């Protein structure tokens, strides 16, 4: 099969290296040598998937087990899909070129709602029946994890089992159960799923019944078998120093989105931004020790040959040991031309010292996210960042030789008015003017300062204080985009904004229930795929698909929920209590802020009270 594809198909597709799978550090195991054959399925293209740390962790932790193998498959780009169809070939894994239907387990990662259609498309191309109920004992088990698994309902027709939370340990536990069942002969999906349901963190949608009120709201979500628990709690690693970390990741030939070695410095973020799902899902903050990180950095660079090391996390400048760590890493590696990059910085914790360290080797672009244009609205969303913070880091940046600054904002946030939009434009101008002043003081040398503002439409997400909020309607969101555009009249300020229609469909699924599965299926039938790619997003088709299944798209996106309502994700327990979220929501409307438990007192969100885990800061509180 591989030879045939290489000779007849790869020369005809845009980027053949996406499908070749011979990269440095790839793991290829003989199929006969293992008890269980699994494939990690990433529902987007290779370049996106290979930039994802989660894939690297799960791929390597599974392949470290002598009994299991894990291969990779990505969504084939449209040209490849066309070739597969012309040649009547199934979608195959990169390592062994085996069709998806030959694997024991297919595991999808759910990073983004708008990749759901690709999941269906990949299963179909891999000749696996799409719906869980259509698959029999000879078909692969289809499992899924990742952030969107915390509201898994829209996918419950298609996925046999969801893994909630951090996957290092639980994935292995799941595979052991499946391997044992496979070996016993007469493999039974039913029996295997029953056993999986008893593992903490595993959600099997078919073991739950959902009832609705006549008005469409949920009446109840109840287990329909005795071995399924009423609430499914997420899994987490207590101690990051002891958690598995891959120091021999695959090195792509092709330039991928994040083409660098990744070092994970911490997990979680307790800044408490009220729109942010990741900030609620991954609590509490757990840091890795600088000693462990330095060892991992050494091995990563040696094993990959990368010339850049990225310190990743939800907010790396919040790492309590960030400055000494970066200094030591640079002292050690700068002579070898290795740069350090910090992908996610906060304006209130980015210091002069950091700025000076990071620019020692190679200058990456600087991006900050004030998220909202006025202090009032920043307090509503609990961003906890002030204009003064922003101007201070902008000053540091310009004085240290950066000429371009990127700012991220959101529009359509609860309580937003035109004044808040004016505030976004004002901030962009203030930063630009500051850059001009500093450049003038330095004798007007070097490139002229530039500011980019990227503006996303607010999408209310499950498990956040804003989960009860509606999305601003589409016309209003477009008006806001245009209004903001009219305020920006400077060719050195670039204004980017997201497709409002995409945010609308995203909102439907982000807060959707299991009835949407039919709509998703219908959309896929009508050709929806790669929805996150603007050239492929078919808005009208999506709306048609949803309406044809008797559902109302606006009801899902624009409805205000009550605290008493049963949410579609009511049975999923992330550790943060619903009462905490509703209290935070009320505080938002009162423009009251909540502190970060790393710097102030505990906010009693529930995670450390109800789960056996605690805040873990290596540099002290």
């Amino acid at each position: 099969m591989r030879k045939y594809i290489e000779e007849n198909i790869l020369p005809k597709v845009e980027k053949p290296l996406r499908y070749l799978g011979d990269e440095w550090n790839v793991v290829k195991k003989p199929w006969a040598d293992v008890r269980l054959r699994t494939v990690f399925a990433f529902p987007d293209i290779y370049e996106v998937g290979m930039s994802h740390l989660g894939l690297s962790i799960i791929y390597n932790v599974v392949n470290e087990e002598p009994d299991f193998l894990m291969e990779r498959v990505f969504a084939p780009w449209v040209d490849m899909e066309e070739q597969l169809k012309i040649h009547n070939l199934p979608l195959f894994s990169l390592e062994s070129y085996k069709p998806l239907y030959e694997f024991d387990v297919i595991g999808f990662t759910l990073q983004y709602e708008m990749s759901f259609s690709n999941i269906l498309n990949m299963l179909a191309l891999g000749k696996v029946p799409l719906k869980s109920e259509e698959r029999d004992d000879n078909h692969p088990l289809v499992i899924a994890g990742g952030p969107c698994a915390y509201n898994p309902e829209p996918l419950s027709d298609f996925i046999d089992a969801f893994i909630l939370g951090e996957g290092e340990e639980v994935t292995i536990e799941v595979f052991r159960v499946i391997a044992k069942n496979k070996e016993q002969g007469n493999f039974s999906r039913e029996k295997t799923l029953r056993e999986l349901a008893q593992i903490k963190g595993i959600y099997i949608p078919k073991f739950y019944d959902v009832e609705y009120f006549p008005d469409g709201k949920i009446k109840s979500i109840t287990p329909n078998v005795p071995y399924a628990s009423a609430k499914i709690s997420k899994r987490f690693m207590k101690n990051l120093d002891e958690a598995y970390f891959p120091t021999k990741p695959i090195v792509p030939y092709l330039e991928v989105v994040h083409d660098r070695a990744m070092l994970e410095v911490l997990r979680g973020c307790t800044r408490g931004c009220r729109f942010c799902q990741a900030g609620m899902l991954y609590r509490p903050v757990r840091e890795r020790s600088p000693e462990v990180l330095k060892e991992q950095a050494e091995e990563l660079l040696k094993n990959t040959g990368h010339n850049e090391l990225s310190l990743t996390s939800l907010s790396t400048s919040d790492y309590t040991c960030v400055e000494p760590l970066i200094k030591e890493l640079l002292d050690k590696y700068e002579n070898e031309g290795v740069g350090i990059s910090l992908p996610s910085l906060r304006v209130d914790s980015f210091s002069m010292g950091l700025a000076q360290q990071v620019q020692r080797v190679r200058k990456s672009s600087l991006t900050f996210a004030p998220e909202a244009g006025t202090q009032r609205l920043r307090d509503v969303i609990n961003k906890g960042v002030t204009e003064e913070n922003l101007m201070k880091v902008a000053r540091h940046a310009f004085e240290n030789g950066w000429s371009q600054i990127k700012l991220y904002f959101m529009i359509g946030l609860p309580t937003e008015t035109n004044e808040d939009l004016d505030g976004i434009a004002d901030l962009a101008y203030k930063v630009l003017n500051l850059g001009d002043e500093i450049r003038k003081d330095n004798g007007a040398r070097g490139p002229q300062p530039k500011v980019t503002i990227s503006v996303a439409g607010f999408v209310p997400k499950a498990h956040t204080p804003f989960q009860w909020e509606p999305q601003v309607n589409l016309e209003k969101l477009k008006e806001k985009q245009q209004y903001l555009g009219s305020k920006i009249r400077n060719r050195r300020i670039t204004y980017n904004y997201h497709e409002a229609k995409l945010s609308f469909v995203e909102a439907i699924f982000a807060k959707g229930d299991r009835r949407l599965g039919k709509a998703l299926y219908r959309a896929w039938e009508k050709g929806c795929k790669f929805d996150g790619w603007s050239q492929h997003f078919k808005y009208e088709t999506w709306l048609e698909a949803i309406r044809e299944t008797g559902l109302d798209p606006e009801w899902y996106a624009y409805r205000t929920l009550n605290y008493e309502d049963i949410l579609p994700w009511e049975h999923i327990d992330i550790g943060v209590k619903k009462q905490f979220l509703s209290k935070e929501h009320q505080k938002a409307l009162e423009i009251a802020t909540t502190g970060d438990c790393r710097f102030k007192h505990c906010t009693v969100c529930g995670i450390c009270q109800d789960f056996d885990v605690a805040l873990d800061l290596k540099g002290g509180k």
Partner: protein
Amino acid sequence: MHLRIKYGKTREGKFLSHLDLMRAWERAFRRGAIPLAFSQGFNPHPKISFGSALAVGVTSSGEYMDVELKKFREIKEIKATLENYLPLGLKIYDIVEIDPATPSLMSKINRAKYQVQGKLIEDFSATQGEEIAHQLLAEENIIVQSYSKKGFKDKNIRPGIFALSIEVDEINKSVLVEFIVQTGSQGNIRPEEVMQALHGLGLPVSIDLMDFHREGLYIDEAGHLFSPLS
């Protein structure tokens, strides 16, 4: 220390673009802890320079690159290390130390030898093959459609063809075309342009299914071909 490396791109590596190739080499040096020298400035780059870029989809057994190292290493050790750390698809043939004043590969290389192999899609004899080769070499001008960023335009490739032979294997119904063409700063003839011309003269092949191989890059001085290593 300055090195000149002769390397090849095998079947597994033929889809690497020039940029992919540069990254792959830098990473292999880094993994092997061979101390590359870096350019000064804003974004330091390793001092690696290549001969002539090879098109995606073409294999090769005669590519060249010059590399500067910060410290001296035994050639044998460098070769053994790189062989350990190169990804699948790249292969080293030879490494020599060169004088830092050696003119760049880019400024010297002006010839490329290609071998293009594939199936005959109609009956075709060895004699017919020889005739087409003679016919092509006898022409003074051969105009082909050349594709560039600006679109298609006419290009006379005949002055850039220096040798050409066609070997037909009548039993296996396949053909091997071998030719030497101009490459580098003085002008560049692409192998598919030559095949396009032969196809026009009646060679029964489908060009996009043929295997293109660059046998080597050379320096022509007064009609003699020299290897960049000599």
